């Protein structure tokens, strides 16, 4: 009996507690709803008593964002002296809005500093982000009705970018991270950075000026390799003999040993550059983990040279350069498409292709023009010789070729297909793996030897 009474009182207590929780929840909901009503009236300048649900939802998300910002600030200040805490939803919202205003001001300050110390480099994406995207954000950021929005085209990639954040919290962390990355880049001579970027672009076959390169990661990695090579000064120039020393230095080391080498190199970089900013040091140490995995992988695949930009190394040396022939005019091309589309028999289609198409670009455009179906691709690809197939392979296996020596391994078919960007590329992959082994080997060798010089944007 006694036990039952105790249980009964606990149940009563639980009921009471859940009632309290429910009434708090109700009060919160009613509080949010009245803020929402107030803001909707403000949004319509009191002229309209209704809005689309979508508009109201956006405003509601903005309200929750402000309350979340306030709550997040409480959890940060948990060890601080007790400050009087707001009791109503409205008060929480007001405090959140005050914080957002303060964060916008902080972000503006941060932006001004970053802009003042901007790297003088011809990197389009970096410059556009700093000169256009961020000012546009500050100009359009609406703290009342869309505080959670981050509508901006900041395309410059950072190594550690916390995309889970929204609104001004995202921009603030983005700017703080860029500031840290920039501090490292500033340790290097800008002339040598430009020289390095040119070599980097040449190595990977693109124009570095309009590629979304993260400057910190490429410069930091090259600096570590520069320490590995035994240079007294940390720099970006690594010669072939330096690289041979790096290979020797890393040779036969296990993961732990490579990690120790990286730790040592980073300490040396910090010392040589006189870095004392703890945030930057922490950032470099954080990046080491990512770098280690890549070095270990490259090392085990005997492919370390892919990670290092070697001075004077010409990636096109000993390669066959293919230069494309003259393309048809748009009118001629349209005629060929119409002729091919009008054919019922695949043999007629291949006859037209053989007679009219004399440039690789035209051939690829035709493959992508919806003129062929299923087995017809196989028939058209069957018109090509080994070299032509290899040239198409350069396009299809672009990603894999960046990673060094390329192999046509049947077990990688599904990965190749995942990277395919067009229907003809999928059919090409099937076609290549249907070739007899000897011919496939010949095409594979040619793919590794040929370099195609066509307008990459058209492919």
């Amino acid at each position, binding site marked *: 009996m006694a036990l039952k009474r105790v249980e009964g009182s606990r149940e009563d207590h639980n009921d009471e507690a859940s009632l309290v929780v429910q009434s708090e929840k*109700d009060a919160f*909901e*009613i509080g*949010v*709803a009245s803020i*929402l*009503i107030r803001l*909707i*009236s403000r*949004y*319509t*300048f009191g*002229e*309209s*008593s*209704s*809005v*689309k*649900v*979508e*508009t*109201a*939802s956006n405003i*509601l998300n903005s309200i*929750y964002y402000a309350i979340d910002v306030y709550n997040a600030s409480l959890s940060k200040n948990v060890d601080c002296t007790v400050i009087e805490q707001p009791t109503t939803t409205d008060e929480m919202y007001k405090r959140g809005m005050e914080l957002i205003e303060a964060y916008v001001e902080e972000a503006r300050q941060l932006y001004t500093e970053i802009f003042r110390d901007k790297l003088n480099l011809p990197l389009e994406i970096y410059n556009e982000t700093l000169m256009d995207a961020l000012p546009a954000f500050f100009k359009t950021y609406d703290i009342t009705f869309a505080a959670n929005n981050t509508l901006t085209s900041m395309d410059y990639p950072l190594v550690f970018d916390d995309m889970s954040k929204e609104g001004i919290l995202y921009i603030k962390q983005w700017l703080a991270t860029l500031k840290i990355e920039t501090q490292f880049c500033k340790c290097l001579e800008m002339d040598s950075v430009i020289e390095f970027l040119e070599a980097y672009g040449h190595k990977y076959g693109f124009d570095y000026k309009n590629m979304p390169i993260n400057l910190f990661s490429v410069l930091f990695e090259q600096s570590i390799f520069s320490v590995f090579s035994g240079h007294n000064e940390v720099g970006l120039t690594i010669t072939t003999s330096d690289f041979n020393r790096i290979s020797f230095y890393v040779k036969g080391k296990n993961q732990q040993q490579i990690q120790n080498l990286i730790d040592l190199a980073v300490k040396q970089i910090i010392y040589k550059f006189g870095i004392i900013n703890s945030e930057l040091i922490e950032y470099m140490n954080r990046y080491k983990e990512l770098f280690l995995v890549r070095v270990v992988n490259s090392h085990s695949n005997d492919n370390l040279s892919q990670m290092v930009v070697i001075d004077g190394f010409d990636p096109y040396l000993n390669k066959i350069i293919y230069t494309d022939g003259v393309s048809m005019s748009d009118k001629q091309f349209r005629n060929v498409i119409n002729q091919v589309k009008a054919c019922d028999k695949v043999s007629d289609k291949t006859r037209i292709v053989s007679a009219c198409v004399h440039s690789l670009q035209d051939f690829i455009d035709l493959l992508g023009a919806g003129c062929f179906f299923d087995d017809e691709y196989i028939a058209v690809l069957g018109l090509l010789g080994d070299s032509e197939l290899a040239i198409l392979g350069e396009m299809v296996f672009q990603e894999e070729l960046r990673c060094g020596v390329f192999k046509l391994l049947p077990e990688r078919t599904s990965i190749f297909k995942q990277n395919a960007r067009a229907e003809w590329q999928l059919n090409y992959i099937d076609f290549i793996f249907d070739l007899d082994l000897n011919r496939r080997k010949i095409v594979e060798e040619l793919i590794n030897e040929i370099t195609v010089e066509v307008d990459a944007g058209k492919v």
Partner: protein
Amino acid sequence: MSLPAVFHSLDLIRTENRIHELLLCNEVLKKQGLVLSFSDAEEIMAVRGRVLKNQERIELDINVSKTLLYQMAQSSYVNPENYVATVNDMYGIFHYIKNATSDLVSDEEVIDAIVVYYNQVCGGSTEFLMGKGIEKILANYHQGRNMTDIINEREEIYWRLSE
């Protein structure tokens, strides 16, 4: 928490008050020989809920419903038999136009337009107003004219020809 949840908590408290608020309109309506019963008020509230749900809109008060009750009571095309149904149709038309224009267009402007078109163009037919009437009102809005403007079609053709 979703938007409907926030408003649901308020609506539960407010529905009864709103019916009472609508019934207070009878003070004015009786001068026009019209009376709103409790079930009429309930029906207006039910239709309001359906329209807002279908048109995916949120409304903060019932001023639009009240204004339509007063405005339609003055129409020569309205009688006690078709009064509530007409008000309900006009309410649906109001929110359709709101969705097709902007949240920032004032309630007054839209109400004026639909009432003018109902009385002066559509001959008291909400069906006609729902078709051609809405089309004309929206054309006024998109061409930067006053939404209540009535442009005679013949006149329109004349001006187009002289251009």
